[in-house]
């Protein structure tokens, strides 16, 4: 067991974990942050995307011990003071989700994308989401949602 201490969605947490524990498992199983989900085992799907020290990562591809001392934001911590993040708003407004399973990762990656590039072209949005798979939407409305969020100042 390894002792880790980190900040998740603004709360300080500290636990003993097995070294092999993936960050996503730590979030889901130990902290009950089940908003972040697991969609594959090869890191292709991006459903587990969270922010680690301010940038997007696939939490299935990070060990919990590697996140010791870090700040993690999940889909559950993206809204602040009861206000949805502009990307969350935009996904609802533009119908950028259907079953919603890819949505946590898609939203977290979109938020990261807009932080790096507040006014992306359609092509830049599409390339910026290449690490996230969706099987329902055909991506059309996801792209629209990111455009909508950009126009609404989503790069916060």
């Amino acid at each position, binding site marked *: 067991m*390894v002792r880790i201490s980190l900040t998740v969605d603004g709360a300080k947490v500290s636990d003993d974990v*097995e*070294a*092999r524990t*993936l960050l996503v*498992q730590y979030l889901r199983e130990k902290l009950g942050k089940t908003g972040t989900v*697991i969609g594959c*085992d*090869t*890191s*292709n799907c*991006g459903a587990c*995307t969270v922010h*680690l020290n301010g*940038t*997007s*990562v*696939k939490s*299935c*591809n*990070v*060990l919990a*011990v*590697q996140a010791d001392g870090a700040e993690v934001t999940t889909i559950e911590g993206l809204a602040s003071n009861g206000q949805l993040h502009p990307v969350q708003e935009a996904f609802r407004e533009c119908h950028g989700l259907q079953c919603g399973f890819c949505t946590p990762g898609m939203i977290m*990656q979109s938020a*990261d*994308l807009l932080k790096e590039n507040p006014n992306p072209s359609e092509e830049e949005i599409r*390339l*910026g989401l*290449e*690490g*996230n*798979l969706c099987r329902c939407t055909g991506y059309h409305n996801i792209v629209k949602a990111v455009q909508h969020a950009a126009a609404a100042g989503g790069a916060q």
Partner: protein
Amino acid sequence: MIPAAFDYLAPTTVEEAVAALARHGDDAKILAGGQSLLPVLRMRLNAPEVVIDLGRIESLRGVRDDGDAIVVGAMTPHSVVGKDPLVAEHAALVSRAVVHLADAQVRHRGTFGGALAHADPAGDLGAPALALGAQFVIAGPSGTRTVAADDFFVDLFETAVGEDEILTEVRLPKHTGWGAHYEKFVRVAHQWPIVAIAATVRTEGGVIAEARVGLTNMGSTPLRARAVEAALAGQPATDEAVRAAAAAAAEGTNPPTDLNGDADYRRHLATVLTRRAVLAAAGA
């Protein structure tokens, strides 16, 4: 989805890491960014007893100017390399390739040295490093040594880095003013390249003075297309001349056959993509 159990070490200096490696030898696996290693562990294709995480060694991060070379610390994330102005100015080929590597999330975690040391023949950094004549600085029990790119890639997933050694930095000889292009051929964006061509050229008044061409996924290691390079030297940067030179792109290659294409098709792709990459690098 869950790796087999292992012990975890997180040294904070290269010396500690080398010592840990000496202690655990074959039983240990080095964890750099983990973007290739963790999927392998999750699928239980490998089950090391000890994982040595280099992530806490600050000295392995960063990009610096060292006179005739740009030096990239092995643990510098791809996303940092991709945005680095020194790399863009003096080793543009690396900038062009690294922004297409995997996806944004992987580029945030994955590291320059980790990807090169992993030596996947379909990895996007081997061909540019080879084309630029990179030098690899390797630390081991008896100090550090430097290996030239030509000697670094040994075989499939095998490099000159010994079992008791760690890749610490990569020196990219300055190619200031050289045009560069990385032509990557995939069926879907999140795929490893079926074939990719790394080309960088120095032109003088519309004539290609020097060219360096690296091939991705055309054999068990990244390859240099030396015949193409030789044929390009002194040629005008025209479609016709480059086409003729690029016809030799598949010479001496041994590309794989898989679901995405057979060896013959890859050889064909190499010639087409080499022409396109060189022309793009030459700004033609």
